[in-house]
């Protein structure tokens, strides 16, 4: 009897741990393993590396990679290029996120209406998103070079040095490029959200005398609020990790590192220069920064 009494709570505990449908755990297992291998393990490794004078070595090679505590982090805060790259992220986000939200919402609303050639326009806005960055960057290089189409059109008012090698314009140009490139994706998110706004609300607004602009402001904008939160958070995360644009569009973060991004700096230090511990510290700081900004965004956008 005593044994039965002892095993009963244990069995209950096991049942509680496995849940009502233990087979569900089996279904979850492959994705859980994927998460651990592809996300959690690299994240753990990055945090570990950031506390060491770490570099990648040949298997079995006898190398010294001493524990350095927070040295990599303190070095980062004294590194002028890293600090400049943080400033560049702020510039990027300040331009990119509001433009992304505004353009994608307006375009989605327009594309949701019964327009002629609606299918064509929906596809057209999505094409930059699915086209390889390398290809479209080639087009932008041609458009904004010294003798490119834009400068030819602007004539004497064109900036000198030209856009992509101009310290003032290089970062905004990257933000404009990213906005244009990603717009199609966010338009699709808003289009989906717009389907969920009941048409009764527009009818009621119309009865109350609201025009198209007022309906947009008082029905559409609040109606897609969850989508706006998603768009802001996603564009912040994607934006803070920009790499291809400074690598290719502004010739390696130029001019004078005025368009260098934290990820480009990580790549240079970790991959090119072999200082993986320091690069990992930058990565951890960037991840923390993005999480904080995203939480603030969410708090602001979701409060009633």
């Amino acid at each position: 009897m005593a044994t039965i009494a002892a095993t009963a709570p244990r069995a209950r505990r096991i049942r509680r741990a496995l849940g009502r449908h233990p087979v569900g755990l089996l279904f979850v297992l492959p994705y859980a393993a994927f998460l651990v291998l592809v996300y959690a393990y690299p994240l753990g490794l990055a945090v570990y590396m950031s506390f060491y004078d770490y570099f990648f070595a040949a298997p079995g090679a006898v190398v010294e990679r001493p524990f350095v505590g927070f040295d990599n982090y303190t070095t980062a805060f004294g590194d002028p290029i890293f600090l400049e790259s943080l400033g560049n992220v702020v510039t990027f986000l300040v331009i990119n996120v509001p433009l992304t939200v505004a353009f994608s919402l307006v375009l989605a609303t327009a594309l949701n209406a019964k327009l002629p050639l609606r299918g064509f326009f929906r596809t057209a806005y999505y094409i930059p998103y699915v086209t390889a960055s390398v290809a479209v960057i080639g087009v932008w290089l041609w458009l904004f070079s010294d003798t490119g189409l834009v400068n030819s059109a602007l004539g004497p008012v064109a900036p000198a040095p030209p856009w992509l090698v101009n310290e003032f314009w290089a970062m905004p140009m990257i933000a404009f490029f990213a906005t244009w490139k990603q717009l199609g994706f966010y338009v699709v998110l808003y289009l989906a959200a717009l389907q969920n706004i009941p048409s009764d609300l527009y009818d009621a607004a119309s009865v109350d005398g609201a025009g198209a602009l007022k309906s947009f402001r008082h029905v559409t904008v609040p109606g897609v609020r969850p989508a706006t939160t998603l768009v802001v958070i996603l564009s912040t995360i994607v934006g803070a990790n920009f790499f291809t644009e400074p690598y290719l569009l502004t010739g390696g973060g130029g001019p004078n590192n005025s368009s260098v991004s934290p990820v480009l700096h990580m790549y240079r230090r970790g991959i090119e220069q072999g200082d993986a511990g320091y690069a990992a510290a930058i990565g951890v700081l960037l991840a923390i920064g993005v999480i904080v900004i995203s939480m603030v965004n969410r708090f602001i956008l979701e409060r009633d």
Partner: protein
Amino acid sequence: MLTHKKRFTKRGRVTAAGLLLLLVAAACGGEEAADPQQAAEATGPIKIWYSNNPEEIAWGEKIVKQWNADNPDEEVTGQEIPAGETSEEVIQAAISAGNAPCLVYNTAPAAVPQFQKQGGLVNLSDFPDADSYIEERTGADAAQYQSPEGGYYQMPWKANPVMIFYNKKIFEQAGLDAENPPLTTHDEFLETGQTLIDEGGVEAAIWPAPTSEFFQSWFDFYPLFIAETGGTPLVEDGQAQFASDAGLQVADFWSQIYENGLAKKEAYNGDAFGEEKSAMAIVGPWAIAVYGESIDWGVVPVPTADGTPPEETFTFSDEKSVGMYSACENRGTAWEFLKESTSEANDGALLEATGQMPTRPNLTDTFSDYFDKNPEYTPFAEQANRLQEVPVVENSIEMWQTFRDSYSQSVIFGKQSPDDAFPEAADQIESLVSEG
């Protein structure tokens, strides 16, 4: 509330355990490397990588085929280096993964200190005949490829001596003497450049990439600095050399090039010289095959402040070495294959196939038949007698990036005087190279 708290605590414990597991896993190493002593004598099949341009692939395939016919028990498998942003990244990834091939015929000397630090390279000096073989084949320049401790972690293989290539048609259009162009001194070069812009109908006299990649200085500042100093590297005996009068003179030359619009501050999206947007380019002998048929070209050494005679002018070698990687199990075979592939006969085959210069002294004597048949390559072969390599120092890539940032800021964009920027960069670089 209590239930919720309990569940939270349990979840927290699971998360903490998971993270701990990850950290432990992260700290663990991979598979063991080959035992160095056993591997040095071991023979058997090996793998090699060579560059991915068609001429070098053809040369590599020919050498491998020839070896395999003579050594059926020590088969060599050759392939072009896998695609990546740069060869160095691909090699670095292979070192970390433990699957680098035995030999890579495209190892950049600037990356060698990093590969060595990673434990990825074999010290060739461990082979009894290696030092004598390398020094006999390469001559006095071999010393430029030794690691600070004295061993050879790379075998110097082929150079692309950097010179000034120019378009004769554009020079003639500008009313310049296309056979003996005034490009010897800095002043002559600047004056010629201005004439080319004014009269030659080009957008730039010369158009080196003004971008920020660490290696770009090898094709603007560095060759002229080497020429100005008669063959001094960027760093010598731990001391940065570029903040000297000679270095500042070269910086001043390039500053004037940019200030006067003789070169553009933005990269050309294509091939500026090939599309005749610029009249000159800084190139190696590879350019003959690329432009030889489409452009009537000439070649001169890089300029110096006072004009150095061509037979005394030094330049940057733009050399590629062969590295033997520590994952190699049959190093005995790899070493024998390396010697075979860099024999006089196979160096001749390389020259014939690619036009690139094997790192041997007196190429015009050694391969006189080739240069009699291909006289257009002779200026590069003569220039190959006066070459300077990048210094083999700790934190080499970081050093070049530091220099590039300083050069870009001061010389290209004029935000700071080189007189101020170069000494600051020199201090940082001396600190970097002394970290080893």
